[in-house]
């Protein structure tokens, strides 16, 4: 009966669209359906029964075993088996242990974690309490981005409400398990999403990564054994406890169980969050869940894994979405960003975008990442500015592979991926930029030529806009652009109201 009510409400709220038909919601099960600021709503939807079950019926070892058997893997990017981490932390003997939730969500095109905390904050509180019971921790910390004010507010309220109901605090639900948690705010540094940097940041320091080992399970926050998981990982826990390991591992494929939430964005009809069972193909998520590419444009690439991931092409659309298949295809699962790119985008420019990001976010501690990424970016900038030299592409590959091997943390180890994967899949575009000084997608400004066509009515708007004085023409007569003076700033193109300026990029002769 209650279940029916819920399904009805779901269709009422969201409508019965194709967008939802292929989805399976575990981590997002309550998002949009319950009032996230009302603990009773969460409890009515079955919330905190998993915690009660754990405290009354299960030993910590049982809990670890269930999570291990479920096959759940970390949703924060690396896909490490969650149960193994729990087991390692549980094994440590120490008077103080921590559980940490990584809600730093650094991928600059993704917002799954934010939506879970905003839409269902109690699922994190409950998941962490269960984890703390399993590994013997008494304190929890959620490291949350300061840029997410609503998420902060709702999670804070959830923690306070849970305390009132004795779901946090001393002797939870009259058991002898005590646990409490707090929120610590990030301050906008991508590298703080890396687990050891994150712990330095919680300690009030500059967020620089530490060398591993020792792993957090042995020596983490304040040098105590620490269990750290991503938001979405935590959000899966209560469902696994309630429905059992077998249920969870029946969803998904071989080594990737359960579901994954993706943030669909870019040139796609349905942008937003989609939670899909592992093993769905990229084609299904893009064309069926996502509704395909808008404006009749052609698909060019899909980018997963954000600044640590890669671009996959049309020919790889039948790749299954699971950790192994995506890695084999040359990208990664990542934390869930999925950007769809159409034919209007220049792949060299996209690679440069991600590299600019990682370069500015490199913390500077290790040399390969600090210096190497900067050099790679210089070469890429040269290429997009039309000053690429023969051999540049090979140099990028060589540098990229070196940085991957030699960097201290995952930031540097993965930063070259967007470049390497676009070179692998779109080498011809790179070659066109380098050898022919041409950008077929008309994106790289320095490689464009602006000309005036016969739609020009001589309004002089472009002539006034041109900062280089490169446009000549009498009022009411067609104007012309002097190419040798043109600095390719594009101001004339933007100023023209009559579509009288053409942007082209043609192959230049080799010098």
């Amino acid at each position, binding site marked *: 009966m209650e279940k029916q009510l819920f399904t009805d409400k779901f269709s009422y709220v969201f409508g019965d669209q194709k967008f939802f038909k292929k989805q399976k919601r575990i981590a997002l099960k309550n998002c949009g359906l319950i009032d996230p600021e009302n603990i009773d709503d969460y409890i009515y939807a079955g919330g905190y029964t998993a915690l009660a079950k754990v405290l009354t019926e299960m030993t910590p070892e049982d809990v670890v075993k269930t999570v291990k058997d479920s096959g759940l893997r970390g949703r924060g990017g690396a896909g490490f088996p969650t149960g193994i981490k729990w087991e390692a932390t549980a094994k440590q003997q120490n008077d103080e242990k921590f559980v940490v939730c990584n809600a730093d969500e650094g991928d*600059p095109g993704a917002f799954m974690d934010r939506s879970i905390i905003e839409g269902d904050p109690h699922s994190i509180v409950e998941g962490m309490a269960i984890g703390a019971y399993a590994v013997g921790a008494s304190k929890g910390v959620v490291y949350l981005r300061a840029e997410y004010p609503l998420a902060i507010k709702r999670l804070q309220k959830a923690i306070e409400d849970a305390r009132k109901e004795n779901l946090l605090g001393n002797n939870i639900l009259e058991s002898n398990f005590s646990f409490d948690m707090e929120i610590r705010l990030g301050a906008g540094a991508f590298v703080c999403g890396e687990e050891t940097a994150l712990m330095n940041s919680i300690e009030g320091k500059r967020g620089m990564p530490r060398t591993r080992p020792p792993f957090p399970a042995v020596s983490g926050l304040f040098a105590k054994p620490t269990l750290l998981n991503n938001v979405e990982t935590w959000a899966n826990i209560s469902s696994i406890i309630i429905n059992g390991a077998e249920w969870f591992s029946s969803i998904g494929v071989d080594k990737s169980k359960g579901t994954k939430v993706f943030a669909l964005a870019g040139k796609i009809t349905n942008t*937003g969050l989609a939670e899909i069972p592992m093993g769905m193909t990229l084609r299904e998520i893009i064309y069926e869940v996502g509704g395909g590419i808008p404006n009749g444009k052609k698909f060019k690439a899909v980018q997963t894994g954000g600044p640590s991931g890669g671009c996959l092409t049309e020919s790889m659309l039948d790749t299954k979405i699971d950790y192994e298949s995506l890695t084999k295809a040359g990208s990664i699962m990542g934390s869930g960003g999925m950007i769809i790119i159409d034919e209007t985008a220049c792949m060299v420019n996209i690679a440069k975008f991600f590299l600019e990001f990682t370069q500015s976010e490199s913390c500077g501690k290790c040399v390969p990442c600090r210096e190497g990424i900067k050099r790679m970016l210089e070469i890429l900038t040269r290429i997009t500015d039309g000053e690429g030299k023969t051999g540049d592409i090979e140099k990028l590959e060589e540098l990229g592979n070196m940085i991957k091997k030699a960097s201290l943390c995952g930031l540097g180890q993965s930063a070259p991926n967007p470049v390497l994967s676009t070179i692998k899949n779109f080498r011809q575009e790179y070659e066109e930029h380098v050898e022919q000084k041409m950008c077929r997608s008309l994106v790289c400004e320095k490689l464009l030529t602006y000309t005036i066509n016969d739609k020009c009515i001589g309004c002089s708007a472009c002539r006034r806009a041109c900062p280089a004085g490169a446009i000549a023409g009498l009022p009411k007569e067609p104007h012309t652009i002097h190419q040798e003076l043109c600095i390719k700033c594009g101001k004339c193109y933007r100023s023209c109201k009559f579509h009288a300026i053409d942007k082209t990029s043609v192959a230049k002769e080799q010098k």
Partner: protein
Amino acid sequence: MTSHIHNQEEINKQIKDFIAEILKQDRPDSHLITVLHKAQELNGYLSREVMDLVSQEMNIPTSTIWGVATFYHYFKLNPIGKYNISVCMGTACYVKGASEILETLKEELGIGVGETTEDMLFSMHEARCIGACGLAPVAMINDKIYGELTPKKITDIINKLRKEEETK
């Protein structure tokens, strides 16, 4: 001017009170970032004076505080304008033309990223995904989100804000 000084005293007092509460907790040093968040919220940005104050109250060297404050993008070391514009340069926005919006703003305001106009009206920053990818490209002015921007739309918004200021 007196009101300004009075204000600063009030701000300093609030920062001190906040720190006094923090010092009662376990591992107070670990709360440095929390304190800097509060100080920035109250003072608008982290001035040298504010950092010295935090240093004295928490017994942490100013050099350490400086190190932390400069490491994180969120902390501002200079005063910011009345309207703080964050242009989203996240992936989704970038793919949909965020750099054009940024260029338009640079031209329109005559300032670069991280700078403030002389009249202290506008500051401009780059932001990462602000979770409104569906509306890309997006900019945030103070707490308000403006979506599906075009160069013309953002220029209109700036002009409207300028007009509002003039008539005040």
